[in-house]
């Protein structure tokens, strides 16, 4: 099962629509958080833009690839865009698998892919 969303809303406590599964042995949740330093400068927020339609489609595509490649039960992802204050999440990923190894590997792979192909850009920042 996969899902992918782009939103301008706060996502820190995003609740994914997950179904119970008796075969589930591991669940890994990752929050990628905006830090207070960017390119050596102290900031208050980062600004993200995305290619509407394609960003969501690419997230969904690589989520599907991860599920296939690592035999996952599920991968859900939400990416926030617009202005994101320091300390708030830019991306949240939930990975579920039978064993922890698959989820740990899949998360690393998924985030690397996301940073290569999903058309989302940091386009500036606001001062602290």
């Amino acid at each position, binding site marked *: 099962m996969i899902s992918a969303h782009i939103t301008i809303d706060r996502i820190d406590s995003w609740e994914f629509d997950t179904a119970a599964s008796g075969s589930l042995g591991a669940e890994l949740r990752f929050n990628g958080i905006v830090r207070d330093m960017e390119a050596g400068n102290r900031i208050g927020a980062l600004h993200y*833009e995305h*290619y509407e339609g394609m960003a969501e489609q690419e997230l969904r595509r690589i989520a599907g690839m991860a599920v296939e490649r690592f035999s996952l039960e599920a991968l859900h992802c939400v990416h926030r865009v617009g202005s994101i204050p320091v300390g708030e999440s830019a991306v949240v990923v939930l990975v579920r698998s039978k064993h922890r190894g698959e989820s740990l590997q899949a998360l690393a792979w998924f985030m690397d892919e996301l*940073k290569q192909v999903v058309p989302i850009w940091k386009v500036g920042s606001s001062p602290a």
Partner: protein
Amino acid sequence: MDINVKCFASARELLQRSELVLTLADGATIDDVERAIRALSPELGKMPFMLAHNKAYPEAGTPVREGDELAIIPPVSGG
């Protein structure tokens, strides 16, 4: 034929517009689109970017048609 190309992030800053129109010969491919974009300025000639074709990454040699949605995708930085 005229092809509309969306420009994002650093490509938009460089071109100072969010969309441009390229005039290409009928039968043009995605490779012709890239060549035409790179010819627009020396900076674009050197800039790393991918192209999107109808909101997906195309294979080399993919034909383009009037009305298709093209976009310049500079190096992404999500996450």
